[in-house]
């Protein structure tokens, strides 16, 4: 009897302890991004957005979502940081903002992890194929380049009344973004409309006067800048000072859709920017967007940037898919993700989710165009102007009447 009581007590204690352990068990999700260093700003936005997604979604398979977000500071530390997280048993990753995201994703997947990539536009893994546990939620930069060309020719024809072969197009940008500019130039040339000017200047550029002078002399109709924040800002300011007002300026995102762009005042006006879907688009077609923006504003005193929104939407979709898989097992989650279809207009970034055989997201479109227009307080405000279903205003083309 004594032995029986001891066994019962032991079993009870173990079951209680087991219950306690079970309650403590969490769903660990890793993110490697930059929280400090040169790319800390967009990286921090992805971190904050993932945190809001975890809070908003609550639990996955009844387990609290435990985020382990680490600061790689720069591309050199990405893989060691991922290695450290995987050594702790973390297998599920959301891609943060990373300058060189492909090696990181490859490392995670090659080592038995799963990467839901909602920020990168590099399609290396989906093009190579065979990466069953890598899911690219974003459109690739090649789609970006193609869309830049398509929209430019469309706006040129519709708003300037010029046939594509009559349009004078200038592509100017930074070496870091040159693959986008080079691809756009290649597409234009292939179509028979080679750019009038195509220049990739150095990172250390301090004076745009020569390039602007050259564009003014050439009578450029459309400028397509592929620039980062600082050179975009310097270019626009100098262009305003020099009275360089091309009828259409359609930038390849990045530098042109950041909040700081407004700080230059009137020099920002008229610029358009091709982007992923952005927080500034119409909220009624993107359920959860309004709440996300409000929460972000409340917590951090500012609005999220586009990478933040994409991270939030990707994380929300990913949590849904894990719940649907009914297991944290990587193969089961991967299989469920591959089979899942979320229609457009159901996620906070508007885009839907449907992966092809190589895990490209077929519903990661349309890309949007934003334009800087005068705000109520005189400061430029970024408004989505295209496509119509997501636009809050119509584009003003040409912005500057001659």
């Amino acid at each position, binding site marked *: 009897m004594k032995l029986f009581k001891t066994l019962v007590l032991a079993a009870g204690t173990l079951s209680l302890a087991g219950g306690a352990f079970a309650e403590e068990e969490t769903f660990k999700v890793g993110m490697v991004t930059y929280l*400090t*260093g*040169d*790319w*800390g*700003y967009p990286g*921090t936005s992805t971190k904050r957005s993932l945190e809001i997604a975890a809070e908003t979604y609550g639990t996955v398979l009844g387990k609290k979502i435990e985020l382990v977000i680490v600061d790689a500071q720069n591309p050199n530390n990405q893989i060691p940081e991922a290695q450290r997280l995987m050594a702790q048993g973390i297998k599920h990753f959301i891609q943060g903002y990373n300058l060189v995201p492909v090696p990181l994703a490859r490392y995670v997947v090659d080592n038995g992890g799963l990467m839901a990539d909602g920020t990168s536009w590099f399609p290396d893994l989906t093009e190579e194929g065979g990466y069953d546990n890598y899911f690219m939620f974003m459109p690739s930069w090649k789609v970006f380049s193609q869309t830049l060309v398509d929209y430019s020719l469309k706006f040129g024809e519709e708003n300037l009344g010029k046939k594509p072969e009559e349009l004078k197009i200038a592509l*100017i940008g930074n070496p870091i973004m040159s693959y986008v500019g080079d691809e756009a130039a290649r597409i234009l040339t292939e179509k028979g409309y080679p750019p009038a000017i195509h*220049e*990739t*200047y*150095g*990172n*250390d*550029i*301090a*004076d*745009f*006067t*020569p*390039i602007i*002078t*050259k564009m003014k*002399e050439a009578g450029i109709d459309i400028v397509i800048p592929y620039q980062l*924040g*600082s050179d975009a*800002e*310097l270019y626009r*300011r*100098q262009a*305003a*000072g*020099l009275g360089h007002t091309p009828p259409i300026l359609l930038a390849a995102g990045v530098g042109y859709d950041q909040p*700081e762009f407004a*700080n*230059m*005042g*009137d*020099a920002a006006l008229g610029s358009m920017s091709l982007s992923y879907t952005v927080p500034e688009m119409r909220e009624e077609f993107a359920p959860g967007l309004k709440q996300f923006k409000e929460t972000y504003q409340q917590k951090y005193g500012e609005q999220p940037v586009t990478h933040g929104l994409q991270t939030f939407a990707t994380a929300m979709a990913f949590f849904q898919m894990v719940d649907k898989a009914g297991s944290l097992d990587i193969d089961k989650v991967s299989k469920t993700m591959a089979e899942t279809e979320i229609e457009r207009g159901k996620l906070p970034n508007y885009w839907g989710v449907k992966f092809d055989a190589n895990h490209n997201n077929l519903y990661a479109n349309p890309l949007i165009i934003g334009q800087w227009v005068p705000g109520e307080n005189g400061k430029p405000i970024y408004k989505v102007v295209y496509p119509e279903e997501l636009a809050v205003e119509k584009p003003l083309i040409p912005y500057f009447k001659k």
Partner: protein
Amino acid sequence: MTFDVFATLLLSGIFTGALYGLFASGLTFQLGSLSIANFGYGSWLILAMYTTYFALQVWGVPLVAVIVVLPLAYFAAGYLIRNILLRQETLAVQILTTLGIAMIVDGVIIMAYSPAPRTLGIVEPLFYITPGIHVGQLRFLAFVVAAVALIAFQVFLRRSYLGKMIRAVVEERETAQLMGINSDRVLGIAFGLSFVLIAIAAMLMIHLFPVTTSAGAVYQLMSFLIATIAGLGNMRGAFLAGIAIGVLNAFLLYFAASYATVVLFTVFVVVLVLFSNRTAGIKHI
């Protein structure tokens, strides 16, 4: 190319280049005259740019106060760094110490100001010489300030008692010490003055260029390039080399922007090969 375009590019190159010359002059003075290899130079430059931005834009400090306080603060920082951290004059210690300080400065920038790029967002008004030839007013002002600052610095070194002490210590340290000059104090002051040049350059630059946390490395490299072309320690040469690079860059950007950086650094390598004695620590002051 019309004459108007040629003249505009030339002037634009001169005025932008003068700013290059100013921001490189502090490094050339440190390297050539004081024999201090400051690998944190670019970081100090962007710290001053960020600080000026925040002072003017966020904290609402009047420009005059910034112009007075920032150079004084930088002088103090330079003096303390030289006399506390860089007393040991071996090259390896200097490199490691200044790199370490640079990492701290970069960290301070990120913690205090966040890594977001900052800009005063000033659209530079133009000054028209003829209807077709123009220069940016801020660039012109920067040219004048840079020229005045560097001339004043040279005059100070040549004419003032303290300046003569600095030259004496730089040229014959032991003899100067035997004559009763406190060389550590004098070198501290000289290093502090080179930091004043950094502060002046930064205050001008933030009115023209955005600042990012990665800009320090670019400025460091550009300063080294100019200092080397000019000859280490040759501040007048740094100013002129800055202008030469500015003009060359302006025309390269016009004719072949894609090759501008490659050509500039090829020039740098050629200068290094042909005039390698310029990097041998010649003390032009």
